[in-house]
């Protein structure tokens, strides 16, 4: 290829490394790189220029609450290995859930869906940590068919941990946590329970924008929207 021809690729390569090309243009550069050792070497040489850019910004100390939230989430998920990432995408509830959330008055929720009744003694405790952050613990309603099952939501500001006990293991299925507000339900994580029926799910964020935390049994990889009736409901 002539030098003039390569100047075009060199211009494109710089834009490519800066992530400034369209998807099609990027693919064209990648195809060219596969065949052109000269440009591969040039890309390797130029790449540190891009890698230095993030270090050029003014360095700030992140807020300590961010670290606390992340570590709390990590520890909770490490303790409950099956806990998995919540999906980023906000989804609309399925028809049954929409009906339940929109049409059924809150006090009638448990009766209205028939499956849910107050199996755990409802309770609400509030505490204050050393750093002044308010924490609270909410006992959840659990499907009475799950005899002896309990669930509590330990809330810490916008995040929290949902702990369950007495839930049955279901091969090929997984428990999914949902945050509900108005007519919208957002996925907030997956978890499984151990042989004794205990499990936990960390909710990294979103409780400030939720009226209710719910759990349903879903296919093994989770669902974008609930496909079964909830087995746990915690009003927050």
């Amino acid at each position, binding site marked *: 290829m002539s030098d003039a021809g390569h100047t075009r690729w060199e211009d494109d390569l710089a834009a490519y490394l800066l992530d400034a090309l369209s998807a099609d243009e990027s693919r064209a550069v990648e195809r060219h790189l596969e065949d052109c050792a000269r440009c591969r070497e040039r890309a390797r040489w130029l790449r540190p220029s891009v890698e230095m850019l993030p270090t050029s910004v003014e*360095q*700030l100390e992140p807020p300590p609450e961010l670290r606390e939230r992340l570590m709390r989430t990590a520890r909770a998920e490490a303790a409950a290995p099956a806990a998995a990432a919540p999906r980023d995408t906000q989804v609309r509830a399925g028809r049954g859930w929409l009906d339940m959330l929109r049409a059924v008055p809150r006090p009638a929720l448990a009766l209205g869906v028939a499956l849910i009744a107050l199996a755990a003694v409802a309770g609400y405790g509030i505490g204050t940590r050393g750093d002044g952050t308010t924490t609270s613990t909410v006992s959840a309603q659990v499907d009475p068919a799950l005899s002896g099952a309990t669930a509590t939501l330990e809330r810490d500001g916008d995040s929290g941990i949902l702990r369950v006990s007495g839930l049955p293991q279901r091969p090929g299925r997984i428990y999914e946590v949902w945050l509900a507000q108005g007519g919208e339900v957002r996925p907030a994580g997956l978890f499984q329970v151990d042989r004794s029926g205990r499990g936990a799910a960390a909710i990294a964020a979103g409780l400030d924008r939720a009226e209710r935390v719910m759990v349903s049994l879903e296919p093994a990889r989770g669902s974008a929207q609930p496909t079964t009736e909830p087995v746990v409901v915690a009003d927050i």
Partner: protein
Amino acid sequence: MPLVERKDASAFEIVYDRHGGPAFSLAYRIVGDRQVAEEVTQEAFLSVWRSGARFDRARGSVRTWLLGVVRNRAIDVLRREAGRATTVSLELDTVPEQESRFEPTDAEALRREAGREVRGALGDLPEDQLKVVQLAYFGGLSHSEIADVLGMPLGTVKGRMRLAMEKMRATLAEGM
């Protein structure tokens, strides 16, 4: 990172302590809002915690990879906002040091010093080259969008990107 992949919370803590500051700083530089930057950083680290296996050592350092995750998420936030092209800062340094709410730790002081050196290298770039680099990297604009914003031909934008990259690389090679 292998320990993070095995869901070792202590290893994750170390990764955060090493890279959380630069990650938050980069997020703030891109989105320009502390709360949003905090959310971006949190999402990025949680995605790393939950899918650490995606890290490919052969493709670079943990820091580079992590900051790439942060940048992608921050740019996604920018792109969700309408009229982003007109709000991208053209300033080299939009974050006054006194804006930090905390006294700098030793690690942060070192990061700041390194950042100052790199900013010095960037500061040596002609302004027209610096602008196209910043609009692309921190603003998430494509070359054609930059051409529109700056009112210049596409070829000029790409040429300036190339010249800027070459000059930055040469500065690095001089052992900055």
